[in-house]
């Protein structure tokens, strides 16, 4: 005896689609979502079906439901692999993952994302790279490339922070490998110069002179003004680690005052273009 | 829509009113122990001469004078009993929940022998004096030496995944042991060496779920002269020739209870709650009483010209053998009557699940 929920009145496919269109214009995301959903259910193979699904992805994204947007995009890619603007679906999937975990905390307070786990943003890297490999000349490629670079430079800088810690900790193999990891996995990112510096320093401490010289040579050729190089292009002793000297003040106060550890590598200001937040995506 | 579950159409049928045309008199009534256990046991009394023997699930064996209900003797077995009691060939046979057959003497119940088998025993063992036949839930039929309980042979019929609770009691004669199995097969064995005399498939499993494919032979077969009457669940009721096992007649029927035979009338209560009567020689359906649907009827029993059957609420209904019309009804035990009622023809012995044994006599007033 449950009251039968009344069937939505069957407006024709076209009316439903145009209603949703106008709602999108007036950024009424929720109502647009409902109309597009009923359109998809009742006319799954109609003429507007594919376009409606693309609109639905966008509506979900704008109404702050990244998961739903990703799911809809995924289904679209599976159903219409050859559709002419399937690249939009890839792009939106990347974008939704990119913004997914920006809690209030990150937005309000300036937090240095390079020191933390970028969270789900890591997935968006995979989505964007799929977009770039499959549709290099898609209209969204440029923005996707810019975001990828931003993300990859985040991850690269993260590696350098870890290397700095391991130098402090005295785990020199770990530190050197972190530098090498950046070199091999994040080419053309602003962290490359610091990665080379890390390798130079690491190999020197480990006593692998040949590798140290090689890295130093590459660093000198490409980034001559890197602080780890002194005027004559040799290794700047100020950065040398190992069991350096401790000031007597530091020694008697159990190392509580005048800590004398060499500074870590962080040349973001010098090599990293002042990266501002990439702009909101325009409508498809 | 009502809160307490609306009528789904498969509740047990209401009892129909009728005026009794037969007087049912209680001859005597006596408590004989704790009755049936919680393992859905069917501990059935057994008549031998003037004595009626009973056993309860706690192990209390009673021997009563069946004319007046006086206790002759009783004996406490320290074990929980899952099957019993049979009283042929001078000895009493019961079985424990741990799969052990115990033989007692009919005078005083002293223990003759006991034999541990591997499998749960839910039907009273039977004997022809030489060999004791025992069926177990894991699809085996054992033959033990009646003198000392030693195992002679056993045959195994692996049971299907889902079966009905309980097994039929085998029939042990001098030249054959007849046993029905939960896979729908009826077999006859040579009592001495266990070789198979003949084998009949009574019912074929059909359907997809384990439930639809159940075709257990649960009813105790009845042997009279040359004919063996058997019935299976979701299968057939049939008369077969005892020598060859070939089918004389067969009708579609589904019952999990024992049959009753009186003269040329064969009575059975179906799983759906119908009481039916067949012509024993031709198998033609005489009548069906459909006023007790879904009341989970137990095994029918003939008495005088009537047939008695009990239901899940513990009512015993008497119907006329020829018409199937109700003639009388008595309430015996609200927990029900799992044990088949015993009779010598004119007195009906009913053992309620809570352990009260009552003797009724029926007279047309």
């Amino acid at each position, binding site marked *: 005896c449950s009251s039968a929920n009344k069937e939505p009145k069957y407006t024709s496919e076209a009316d439903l689609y145009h209603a949703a269109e106008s709602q999108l214009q007036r950024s009424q995301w929720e109502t647009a979502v409902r109309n597009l959903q009923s359109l998809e*259910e009742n006319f*799954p*193979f109609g003429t507007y079906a594919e376009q409606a699904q693309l609109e639905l992805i966008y509506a979900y994204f704008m109404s702050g439901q990244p998961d739903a947007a990703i799911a809809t995009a995924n289904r679209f890619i599976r159903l219409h692999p050859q559709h002419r603007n399937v690249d939009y679906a890839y792009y939106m999937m990347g974008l939704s993952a990119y913004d997914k*975990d920006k*809690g209030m*905390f*990150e937005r309000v*307070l300036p*937090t*240095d994302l390079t*020191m*933390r*786990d970028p969270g789900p943003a890591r997935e968006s890297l995979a989505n964007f790279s799929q977009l770039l490999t499959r549709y290099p000349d898609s209209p969204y490629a440029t923005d996707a490339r810019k975001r990828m670079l931003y993300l990859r430079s985040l991850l690269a800088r*993260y590696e350098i*922070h*870890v290397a700095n*810690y*391991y130098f*402090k*900790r*005295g*785990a020199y*193999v*770990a530190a050197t*490998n972190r530098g090498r*990891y950046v070199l091999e996995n994040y080419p053309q990112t602003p962290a490359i110069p610091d990665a080379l510096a890390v390798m130079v320093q690491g190999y020197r401490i480990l006593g692998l002179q040949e590798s140290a010289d090689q890295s130093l040579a590459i660093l000198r050729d490409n980034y001559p003004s890197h602080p780890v190089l002194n005027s004559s292009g040799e290794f700047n002793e100020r950065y040398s680690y190992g069991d350096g000297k401790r000031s007597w003040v530091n020694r008697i106060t*159990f*190392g*509580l005052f005048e*800590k004398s550890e060499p500074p870590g590598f962080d040349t973001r200001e010098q090599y990293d273009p002042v990266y501002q937040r990439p702009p909101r995506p325009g409508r498809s | 829509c009502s809160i307490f579950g609306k009528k*789904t*159409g*498969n509740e047990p049928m209401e009892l129909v009113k009728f005026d009794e045309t037969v007087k049912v008199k209680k001859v005597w009534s006596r408590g004989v122990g704790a009755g049936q256990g*919680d*393992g*859905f046991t069917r501990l059935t009394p057994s008549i031998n001469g003037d004595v009626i023997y009973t056993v309860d699930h706690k192990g209390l064996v009673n021997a009563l004078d069946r004319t007046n209900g006086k206790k002759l003797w009783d004996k406490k077995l320290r074990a929980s009993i*899952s099957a019993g009691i049979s009283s042929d060939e001078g000895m009493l046979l019961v079985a424990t*929940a*741990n*799969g052990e057959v115990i033989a007692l003497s009919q005078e005083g119940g002293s223990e003759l022998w006991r034999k*541990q088998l*591997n*499998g*749960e025993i839910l039907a009273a063992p039977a004997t022809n004096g030489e060999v004791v036949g025992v069926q177990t*839930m*894991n699809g085996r039929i054992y033959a033990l030496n009646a003198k000392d309980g030693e195992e002679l042979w056993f045959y195994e019929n692996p*049971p299907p*995944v*889902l*079966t*009905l*609770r309980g097994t039929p009691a085998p029939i042990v004669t001098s030249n054959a042991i007849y046993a029905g199995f939960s896979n729908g097969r009826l077999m006859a064995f040579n009592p001495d060496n266990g070789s198979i005399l003949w084998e009949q498939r009574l019912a074929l499993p059909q359907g997809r*779920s*384990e*439930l639809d494919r*159940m075709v257990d032979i649960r009813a105790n077969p009845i042997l009279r002269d040359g004919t063996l009457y058997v019935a299976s669940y979701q299968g057939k009721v049939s008369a077969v020739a005892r020598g060859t096992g070939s089918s004389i007649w067969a009708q579609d029927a589904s019952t*999990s*209870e024992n049959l009753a035979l009186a003269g040329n009338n064969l009575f059975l209560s179906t799983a759906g709650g119908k009481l039916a009567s067949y012509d024993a020689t031709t198998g033609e359906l005489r009548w069906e009483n459909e006023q007790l649907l879904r009341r*989970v009827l137990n095994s029918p029993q003939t008495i005088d010209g009537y047939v008695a059957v009990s239901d*899940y609420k513990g009512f015993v209904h008497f119907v006329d053998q020829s018409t199937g019309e109700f003639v009388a009804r008595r309430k015996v035990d609200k927990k029900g009557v799992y044990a088949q009622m015993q009779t010598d023809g004119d007195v009906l012995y009913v053992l309620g699940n809570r352990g009260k044994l009552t003797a009724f006599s029926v007279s047309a007033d």
Partner: protein
Amino acid sequence: QSDSFRVSDIRVEGLQRVSAGSVFSALPIRVGDVLTQADIQSATRELFKVGYFADVSIGRDGDVLVLVIKERPAINAIELKGNKVIKSESLLDSLKQNDLAEGQIFQRATLEGITQALQREYIGQGRYGASVKIDVEDLPRNQVKVKIDITEGTVARIKKINVVGNQAFNDAELTDLFELKSSGWLSWISGNDKYSREKLKGDLERLESWYLDRGYLNFKVNSTQVSLSPDKSQIFITANVSEGEIYKVSEVELAGDPAIDEEIVRRLIMVRPEQNFSQILMTTSSEYITQRLGNEGYTFAKVEGIPERNDEDKTVKITFFIDPGKRAYVNRINFRGNTKTIDEVLRREMRQMEGGSASTAQIEHSKVRLERLGFFKDVKVDTVEVPGTTDQVDVDFTVEEQPSGSMNLQIGYAQYSGMLFSAGITQNNWFGTGKQVGFNLSHSRFQTGYNFTYNDPYFTVDGVSRGFNLYYQSSDYYYANISGYSTDVYGGKMTFGYPISDIERIGFDIGLRSLEVKPNQNASQEIQRSPAFIDGARYIDQDQFAYINESLNSGIDFPAGSIELGTVTEDMFGEPGFLDVYGKTFNDVQAGIYWAKSTLNRGILANRGASQRLSFEVSLPGGDLEYYKFDYTAQMFQPLTRSLTLRLHTRLGYADAYGDMDELPFFENFYAGGFGSVRGFERNTLGPRISPLRSASPVQASWDDVNGDGIVQSNERGTQVFLLCNDPSAPLPAGAICDPGQIVAVENQQVYTGRTRGAFGGNVLIQGGAEVLFPLPFIKDQRMLQTTFFVDAGNVFDTNCGARQPNCYDVDLSKIVMSSGFGLTWISGFGPMTFSISRPIRKGDLDRDEFFQFSLGQTF
């Protein structure tokens, strides 16, 4: 027309819902093919196979191939009726898996599929009696509506489980192991009497391992039967077993390369010759050895105990095959989920070095250290092999951040201090940097305080911590149930500490403090002399006063000057209080040292391990105060059962003065009672009480020659004087106390009944208790909740009690008060909330119990 022809174009008619794409992809014909009649037949068959089409006919229009297609109807809606136990969504989901859902094409097989899928759902729930009726209603535009009517029937419940053939253990013992149970009164909640094949398989495995663990090597489950009562409402399970004999261990061998010396391995083996064989002991020994090898860096080690049976003498020879595998090295340590806490805060807790030899113990130890930080609700770790290498692993930690009270505005209510308002930021993971920073402003009737604390636990990479704190606090102890004084204190402190082992730390602090004590109206003898000494006041002694009174009342006059009055001296006003001796303001330099050891498993609401802390604080000589204080707190968790844990805790304190200070300043006393101490008693009210206040009211006793006529008439009353007691037996006004040589004064007794109960504290604290932690039923996420049944005991003593201080004893264990009750702590978004109800078991007559205590938004 010739039999075959070349296809110039393909035209499709009659498509409504199916996309042309799927038709073309199913059609084996392409434009330009040469077709024969046979090709057309096979094409039609192909299209039918797609399953979407009711009818397909392929014709020719010249060289154009024409496909006329009539689509099958699509399911517009599925309507479920009569399902109560299983909700419609889950039924629709199971239908969807057999792609029977709205929008799908309705095929003949669909009907059969629906009944089967639903039946399987119900049989899976043990409802053998369920039945399904379906009817299909046509709708416009080639759609159909599927109406399903379900009768669920009753659920079959397990009535009895019978194990046949067991001699060594009785049925009850064995069925107790089973997860499936016969219907009991609790079954309607747990549903453990519902039959499921997997559960039965699991139960039989448990039964087998029970026997194998006790030496029955030949144990076998021969067969099991599941049977149904005729009315399909009861299920019976029978397991036929054969136990076999008990096997004894004949000898224990090691085989393969143990990689670490045999002695260590042998010590880990729990299986001994002559002992009954036990599978669990064998597998546990293998696990210990595997872990031990893991600690040595052999992360890929495999150890297996193989029993070889000797059936004649029922013995078994056990050989442990050890394959250490390659020594593994850690390639990278990755952290996921730390979106707030920075990487270094996690990495510095690592005991496993990246780029070094992998050790399971160190990885496990690192996980425990992360949990101890208290920043994460949950920490998971797994070691993953690095593809392409045979001996390298990555260690991946996944953490789940938990709010560690960043910006908290706590409005709380604690009985003793009334409304507690505290705004501030106390955060021990400041912006995820792992630094502990706190600006705290708190105000309540008891205390107003401003407090800034800063501490960097990893000032150096090895964990040397450095921090400081500045504070101002004015507290009126009256509202903390401590007798009459308030203090204003401000100061600063430098703190640092460092680990002396992985679980022990030593710390020092040094600081300046300036303290001012203000007694209020019901201060006590110990604090300040009472009655208050008024300089220059005059007194008359008792009998002289009586004599004068008597004579004046009978009209006799006296010559002026004949009554001499003395001026009071201090010692007539009772013992000097602390403040009288040492003044009211104190500036001192405080130094402290602490030693702490903790193996607790979690930062907040721990339930495993133990922690203890011994601290020694001294007010350095040269300051206004000279006292020292020992304070020892310890707690220990001992798991009782899988869900119950016993917590033992204690706190011992001793303080005393030294040098030229001969009694401990009263504001440094220990107190006991209430939360964090002996629950069930009013806060801080246990132990010594103040000796009651005295007030001396001057008497209208002296007569002066007011009118200067040389004679003192009886009406010439002069100034008020004090009465000096020298004859205690003489009649005195009510409540007055006469100590010889002291001014007669009145004691105000109601101090003990007022708010503070006259509590004063003492210099020795003994306190402890035992609690049983139990999980609340029905609540899933217990990580933020702790419920306990506790017994608390303790009291405060004083080694030099004031003469008339009631309830003040030197250390005497028989005076310990005790209470027992239930406590609940919940870490909510606002911070910890604590409730407790308790009953005293043993208390002194002056101790006041308090049945219900609670505190919101404030750690106790």
